[in-house]
């Protein structure tokens, strides 16, 4: 009877997770949706504590206190530009936690109780397999996420790091972990052997996670975080199988599905397959130099301001460079001024702008840009033809016409923002250096392109000042 009540409470929790996620489908209801999911988590944890009854709570309370403090401080302090690395790190913690739960179960049930039975005999055959899976996926997620975090936060270089023969190394490692896992689940009968098998599985899967992420370049990071997100959910699901907990299985599956969909969206936005992202080491080619370019015309902020003054429709195309230069507030001020002159201003957002799915939207929201003004690529492109001026700040590959015109280009087929169709393109950039893809952008040479060289924020502020002067003079 009592256990039925607990089961029902877990059901309430699972339903609230789904309802909460559904709330995230609309901006208006999203905040409430997130709160409902948090409530679901609270119910699940509280039910577990009730279910356990009177036990030694010291470890649990200490763990909850330490984790809450660290989590809350991180959440309040993080800059919006640093969101991707924070999500990557949290992901790693989630995956790591699942792996640790699996390890704790193995230690408790087998190693510390000095049993002579196999894992399969002690926990049951299916639990033996899922405990291994949760351990494996958790470890891969943990080490992969930590590498992603190091890359995204600039502590590790962003360009792909390629090891010789890595495909063979990976194959051997995957085979090794499968064998060790098999032995762990069904053959080790004394605690020393079980412990050894556990440590081998942990070590090898941690290495697999590292090797999976280090060859991946900066531009592909949105795909990688989405994939790791999915894996952290699957690890939680696997833990649910071990413990026979449906709420873990359900919420883990929801996260797994979410991560997979985002991975898919990101791959489509770059016209690449997941296999290609994971194995090709995209962006390792040597970067081109400035000498490739001819007919590039450089303009001053004043000249840019004159173009904008007469423009009736303006589209701003922000890229990650905008975030790096902290130029989102300057961009919004410029947009405000142009609007006060009667121009129509929108922001065209490429799906992979920024370092994670939807990153640019958050950065612009942080600068008080109303989300109605953020236009997705498919809606923005038909409008380009009738746009007077496009301002590209800190974006490069996503506006490169080679994706459509040059079949030999590495980015050929990638959907782009067709800014070259606009009357004038103002390209604000530090230099002619290539973007993540490491290739030339012929847009810089086009007749309707005006290159304005300099720091994104400073240039936008200079244009703003010039515009104010122009309107004061008029």
């Amino acid at each position, binding site marked *: 009877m009592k256990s039925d009540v607990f089961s029902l409470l877990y059901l309430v929790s699972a339903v609230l997770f789904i309802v909460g996620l559904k709330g995230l489908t609309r*901006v208006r209801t999203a*905040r409430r949706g997130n709160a409902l999911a948090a409530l679901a988590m609270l119910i699940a944890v509280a039910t577990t504590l009730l279910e356990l009854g009177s036990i030694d709570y010291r470890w649990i309370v200490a*763990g909850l206190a330490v984790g809450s403090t660290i*989590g809350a401080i991180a959440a309040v302090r993080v800059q919006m530009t640093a969101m991707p690395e924070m999500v990557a790190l949290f992901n790693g913690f989630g995956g790591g936690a699942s792996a*640790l739960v699996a390890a704790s179960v193995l230690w408790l049930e087998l190693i*510390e109780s000095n049993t002579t039975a196999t894992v399969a005999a002690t926990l049951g055959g299916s639990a033996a397999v899922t405990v291994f899976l949760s351990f494996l996926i958790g470890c891969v997620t943990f080490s992969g996420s930590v590498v992603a975090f190091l890359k995204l936060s600039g502590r590790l270089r962003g360009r792909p790091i390629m090891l010789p023969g890595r495909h063979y190394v990976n194959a051997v490692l995957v085979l090794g972990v499968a064998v060790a896992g098999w032995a762990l689940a069904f053959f080790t009968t004394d605690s020393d052997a079980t412990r050894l098998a556990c440590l081998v599985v942990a070590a090898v899967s941690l290495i697999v996670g590292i090797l999976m992420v280090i060859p991946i370049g900066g531009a592909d990071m949105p795909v990688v975080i989405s994939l790791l997100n999915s894996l952290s959910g699957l690890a939680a699901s696997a833990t649910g199988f071990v413990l026979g907990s*449906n709420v873990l299985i359900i919420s883990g599956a929801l996260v*797994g599905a979410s991560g997979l969909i985002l991975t898919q969206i990101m791959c489509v936005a770059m016209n690449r397959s997941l296999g290609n992202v994971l194995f090709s080491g995209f962006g390792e080619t040597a970067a081109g130099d400035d000498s490739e370019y001819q007919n590039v015309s450089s303009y001053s902020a004043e000249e840019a301001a004159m173009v904008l003054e007469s423009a009736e429709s303006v589209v701003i195309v922000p890229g990650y460079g905008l975030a790096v230069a902290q130029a989102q507030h300057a961009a919004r001020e410029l947009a405000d001024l142009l609007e006060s002159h009667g121009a129509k201003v929108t922001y065209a957002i490429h799906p992979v702008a920024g370092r994670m799915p939807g990153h640019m939207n958050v950065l612009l929201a942080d600068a008080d840009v109303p*989300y109605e003004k953020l236009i997705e690529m498919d809606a923005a492109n038909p409008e380009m033809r009738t746009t007077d001026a496009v301002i590209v700040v800190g974006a490069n590959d996503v506006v490169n016409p080679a994706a459509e015109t040059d079949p030999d280009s590495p980015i050929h087929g990638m959907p782009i923002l067709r800014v070259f169709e606009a009357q004038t393109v103002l390209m604000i950039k530090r230099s002619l250096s290539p973007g993540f893809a490491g290739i030339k952008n012929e847009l810089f040479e086009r007749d309707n392109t005006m290159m304005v060289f300099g720091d994104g924020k400073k240039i936008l502020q200079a244009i703003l000042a010039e515009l104010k002067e122009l309107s004061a003079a008029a």
Partner: protein
Amino acid sequence: MIGPLLIGLYVFVLAIFVGFEIITKIPPTLHTPLMSGANAISGITLVGAVFAARMGGLNASAVLAFVAIVFATINVVGGFLVTDRMLGMFGRKRKS
């Protein structure tokens, strides 16, 4: 009768479908909050961590469970809070 593994598998597969149905409807504007929110949800493994820590004591298993609780709680608390912070920015009125 079907065993617990199969029941779990049923639940898992159906939940994946529910997830696909809901998440394909989420607009790109909300993808970052979705991701950090989903991240927080994957901290549900906290339930498993709490369960694993039930024996107390000073064994390797208890220490492992303790670290699992810390990790999962960081994920849960940090994830939900930062998602709320982001979503707050979407709704807020412009400073004039």
